C-alpha cells in the first residue's frame, strides 16, 4: 500500500511539474491580461481564469476544442503538486523550516481562493437618506414578487425567480389563485412612454403601468458598475375558468408594486433584484462627498449609517468610507458609490474565506524571511571565513 502511494506521489510531487505549472500559469496570466484589451474583464476572467480549459471555436460554428489549460486546471494541479511535495519531502529541520512554511502558506492561499470562487456572494445595498433596509440586492438575478395585501401586519410574498421567468413558460403556486404566463422576458430593456417623440407606438401591456409604456430590448451590460434594466411582460390567468386577467409590464425600473384584484383579494406585483435578507437593518443618516479645495478631485466618500440588530442588542452609528468597510455577522459593507448627493451605494460581500489571504500572507512572509535570512547569514559567515583566510 505504502509503495503504491509513493509511486503516485513521486511524479505528482516532482519539481519539474512545479516548473511546468508555473510556466503555464505565467502564459495564462499574460494571455488573460492582454485579452482584456478586446473583451470585457468579466468575460476574460471567466474564459481564462475561472475555467478548466480555454476553448477555441473554429469559425464561430458549434465546434469547440480546448487549446490550453484554464485557471482552475493549473491551480488544481499546482495545489496537488504542493500537497504531494509536502507529504513526500516533509522533514523537520531549521534549514527547511522556511520553505515548508512558505509552501504551507501557499496551500492556504490557493484553497482560500478556490473557496472564495465557490462560496462568496456579492450584492449591493442602495440607501437614500433616512431609508432603512434589512436586505441587499443581487447585481444580476431578479425575482417577481407577488404580495397579497391583507389588513394584517405582515404580508405574504411569493417570489418567482428570474431564471423561471426567463424560460418564458407558465408558473403556478398553491398560494396563488392565478397562473403567471410569461409573454416576454428582457434581460435588459429600454422603457419609454408611448407617444413620445421617437418613442414606441405600442404599449407593452394591457394593464397597470405597462399600458402607457413601450418596451425595446437592449443588449446586456457587462460593465461592473451598470445594472441591467431587466423587464418582463406577464399575463395572469385565473385558476377559476382559465380566464385571462390581462397582461402587465413588470421591470426593475418600475419601483412601485402594481396592484390588481382577483376574486375579491388584493394583490401587488413587482419585478425586483433578488434580495438577501439580514437579521438586522441599516439606515442611512447622511452621505458626504468631499473634494480637495479648488478642485474636482474626490477626497473621500463616506456614509454614516445606523446599524440596528434587536437580536444582538446592537444599535450604533457606523461610518463606512473608502478603505474602511463595516464587517458585521459575516457580511462586509464597502462604500461603493452614490447616486445623488443624498443616497449611497454599499457593496455587500459575504465571503466565508475572506481571512485566508491574511493568514496565508503572514505564513508565507515568515517562511520566505526565515529561508532567506538563513541563507544570507550562512553566506555572510562563509564570506567572512574566506576573507579571514
Amino acid at each position, binding site marked *: 500500500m505504502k509503495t503504491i502511494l509513493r509511486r503516485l506521489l513521486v511524479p505528482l510531487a516532482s519539481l519539474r511539474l512545479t516548473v511546468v505549472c508555473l510556466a503555464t500559469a505565467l502564459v495564462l496570466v499574460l494571455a488573460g491580461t492582454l485579452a482584456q484589451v478586446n473583451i470585457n474583464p468579466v468575460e476574460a476572467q471567466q474564459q481564462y481564469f475561472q475555467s478548466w480549459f480555454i476553448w477555441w471555436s473554429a469559425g464561430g460554428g458549434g465546434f469547440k476544442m480546448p487549446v490550453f489549460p484554464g485557471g482552475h486546471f493549473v491551480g488544481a494541479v499546482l495545489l496537488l503538486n504542493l500537497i504531494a511535495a509536502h507529504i513526500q519531502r516533509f522533514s523537520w529541520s531549521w534549514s527547511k523550516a522556511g520553505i515548508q512554511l512558505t509552501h504551507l502558506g501557499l496551500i492556504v492561499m490557493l484553497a482560500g481562493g478556490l473557496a472564495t470562487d465557490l462560496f*462568496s456572494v456579492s450584492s449591493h445595498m442602495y440607501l437614500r437618506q433616512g431609508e432603512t433596509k434589512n436586505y441587499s440586492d443581487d447585481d444580476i438575478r431578479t425575482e417577481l414578487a407577488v404580495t397579497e395585501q391583507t389588513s394584517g401586519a405582515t404580508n405574504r410574498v411569493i417570489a418567482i425567480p428570474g431564471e423561471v421567468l426567463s424560460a418564458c413558460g407558465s408558473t403556478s403556486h398553491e398560494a396563488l389563485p392565478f397562473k403567471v404566463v410569461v409573454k416576454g422576458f428582457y434581460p435588459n430593456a429600454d422603457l419609454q412612454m408611448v407617444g413620445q417623440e421617437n418613442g414606441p407606438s405600442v404599449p407593452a401591456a394591457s394593464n397597470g403601468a405597462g399600458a402607457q409604456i413601450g418596451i425595446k430590448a437592449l443588449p446586456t451590460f457587462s460593465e461592473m458598475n451598470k445594472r441591467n434594466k431587466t423587464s418582463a411582460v406577464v399575463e395572469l390567468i385565473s385558476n377559476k375558468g382559465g380566464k385571462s386577467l390581462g397582461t402587465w409590464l413588470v421591470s426593475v425600473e418600475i419601483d412601485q408594486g402594481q396592484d390588481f384584484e382577483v376574486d375579491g383579494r388584493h394583490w401587488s406585483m413587482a419585478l425586483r433584484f433578488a434580495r438577501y435578507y439580514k437579521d438586522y437593518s441599516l439606515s442611512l443618516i447622511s452621505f458626504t462627498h468631499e473634494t480637495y479645495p*479648488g478642485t474636482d478631485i474626490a477626497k473621500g466618500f463616506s456614509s454614516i449609517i445606523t446599524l440596528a440588530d434587536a437580536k444582538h442588542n446592537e444599535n450604533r452609528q457606523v461610518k463606512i468610507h473608502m478603505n474602511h468597510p463595516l464587517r458585521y455577522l459575516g457580511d462586509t459593507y464597502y462604500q461603493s458609490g452614490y447616486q445623488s448627493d443624498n443616497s449611497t451605494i454599499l457593496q455587500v460581500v459575504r465571503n466565508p474565506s475572506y481571512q485566508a489571504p491574511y493568514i496565508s500572507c503572514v505564513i508565507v*512572509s515568515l517562511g520566505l524571511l526565515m529561508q532567506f535570512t538563513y541563507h544570507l547569514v550562512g553566506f555572510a559567515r562563509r564570506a567572512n571565513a574566506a576573507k579571514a583566510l
Partner: protein
Amino acid sequence: MNRSIPYLILLVAVIWLGSLWLPKKTKANDFDVSTFSRLPVLTGGRIKPLDTVARNSLLIMGRKQSLKLASGESMSASRWLAELWFNPLVADTYPTFYVANQEVLGMFGWPQADKRYCTFAELQPKLQKIDEEGSAAADKNAKSRSPFEVAIFDLRSSLLLYQQLKLSIHLDGTENFSKEIETYATTLTAAATKLSQSQTPPDKDQTAFLRSAAARYEQQANATNILAVAPPAGGKEADWRSTGATLMRLNSAEAIPASLAAFADLSDAFRAQDTATFSRVAKEYSGWFSIAHPEWTGKTHFEQLFNQVEPFTQGMVLYIGAFLLACSSWLVCPRGLRKTALLLLVLAFAVHSFGMFSRMYLQSRPPVTNLYSSAIVVGWGATIIAMVLEYLFRYGIGTAGAGVVGFVTLLIAHNLGSNGDTLEMQVAVLDSNLWLATHVVVITLGYSAMLLAGVLAIVYVILGMATTKLTRELAHVLTSMVYGVVCFATLFSFVGTVLGGIWADQSWGRFWGWDPKENGALLIVLWCALILHARWGGMIRQRGLMAMTICGNAITAFSWFGVNMLGIGLHTYGFMSKAFPWLMAFIILQAVLALLTRLPASRWLSFRNAERRVLTAAGFRPLA
C-alpha cells in the same frame, strides 16, 4: 593612486552640490523674483509656491522648467510667470510653446524641422484652427490618436492652460489694479451706506460701474483655478479664494485682504517697471504670510528650495559618474577608482534620498503616490541593495549596477514628470497612507530588486562575451549576487502583491480580481518562483539563471509600465502612449541579451580564453 584622492574628488562633488543650495541673488535694480517665487497660492488641491506653478506650467507647454528667449538668454520660470500675469502682451512674444510635429508645423505653413518653440503671438491667428483640430482629437479615444492628433491635442491643452494662467490675478488689459479695487470698494461702500441710510438705490452711474466690475470679477473667478487670496490668520485651506471671488464678496474698503492688495501692487509695480516697489511689496507680503500662516510657510519655502536644488538631476549626474568610474576600475587603478566610484554612489544616494524624503514631507505621504514617484523609489531601493552587495563583494559590480539603475530610473522619472505637478493630490481610493506605505512601497522595492538582478545578469553577459574579465571566480560571485537579489525580489514581490490583495479586499470587496496591474504583479511573482524552482531542480545553471533573470527585466517593465499602456483596469493611473516604442525596444533588447547566453562557450571571450589558458598550461600549443 594616493589614498586621499577619492576623498578629494568627493569633496569637490560636495562643494559643487552645496553651491546649488545658495539662494539666487537679485541684482540691486532688478525685480526680487526670488521672494516672488516663494509666495504661496492654492491650486490643484494644495498650497504651493509660485515657483512650482511656474515651473510645472512651463514644463507642460515647453517641456522645460525655464524659458530660453530668442536672444539666447535664459529666463527663470517665476520671472516668466510675473511677466505673463502682470504684463501679458510682452509674455505673448516669448517662445513658450514646444511644437515638434511636422504635420502641425505644416498646417501652420511654417518651414518644417527648424521651428521648435513658438510664441503665443504667433499662434494667436491660428487659435480657431487649433481648437477645431484639437477638439476633434479630444473626442477620440486616447489610444487611437495619431501622432498629429496627439500633438495638436497637446498644443490645444497648452494654449488653454496658458490663457487660463494669464487670468490668475486679473483680466487682460488691466491698467491700474490697486486703483480699480479701491474705487470698486469705495463705490460699493457708498452705495451700501446710501441704501441703508436713506433707503434710496444708488444712482445710475454707480450701478453701472458696480455691475460691470462684478461681471469682470465673476469672469475671472470662473476662468481661473489659482486661488491666490489667503484667508486671514487662523483660516483653513477651504477658505482660499480667487481674486475675482474675493472681490465679489467684498463689502468695504477696509476688508480688502492682504493677499489681494499685495498682488494688485505687485501687478502695478511690475507694469511700471518699478523694481523697488515690486521687491518691497513681495517681501512685505511674504513677511505677512509667514506671521499669519506659519503652518503653511515652512512647506512652501522648502518646496521652492527643493525645486531650485533639483536633487534628482544632480543624482543622475552622480550616478552616471559612479558607473563610469566603477567600469574604469576594471581596466586601470582598481582600488582607487572603485573607492571613488563607491563614494560618489553614496553621495548620489544621499542626494536621491534627500529628494525622496523632501517629497514625502511636502506631500505628507509615503514615498510612492504615482508612476513618477515609483520610478524614484525603484532607483532608490536598487541602490540600497547594490550598496550591500558592494559591501559583501568588493568588485565594483554593485556600484556599477546601482549607477545604471539609479541613472535610468531617474531619467524615466524625469520624462514621466513632464505632465505637470508630480505632487498631485490622491483620489479617494488611494487616500490611505497605511496601504501606500506598505503595499505600494514593498511592490516597488520588488521592481528594484528584479531590475538590479537583471542589470547584474547583463553585466555577466557583457563581461563574459566581450571581455576576458569574467573569471571563474567572478562568474561565481555574480551568480551568487543574482541569485540572492532574485530571492529578495521574490520576497518583496510576493508580500507586496498579497498586501495589494488585502487592500483591494478592504476597499473593493475582493482580494483578487484579475485586474491588469494585479496580474502584472503576479507575473513577477510567478517568474521569480519559476527561476528559483528551475534552479533548485537543476534545470538551469549559471547561464540559464542569467538568461531568465534578464527576461525578468522585460516582465518587470511590462508589469510596471506595460499594463498601464493597455489603458484598461482599475489601476489606470498615468497612461503614456508616448513611451510605448521605448518599452517595446527595451523588451526586445532583453530578449536578445537572454538569447545571447545560449551561444556556445567558444563564442564567449572569457570562456574561450580560460579554455586556452588551461590548454597551454597543460602543454598544448594552440592551433594557428
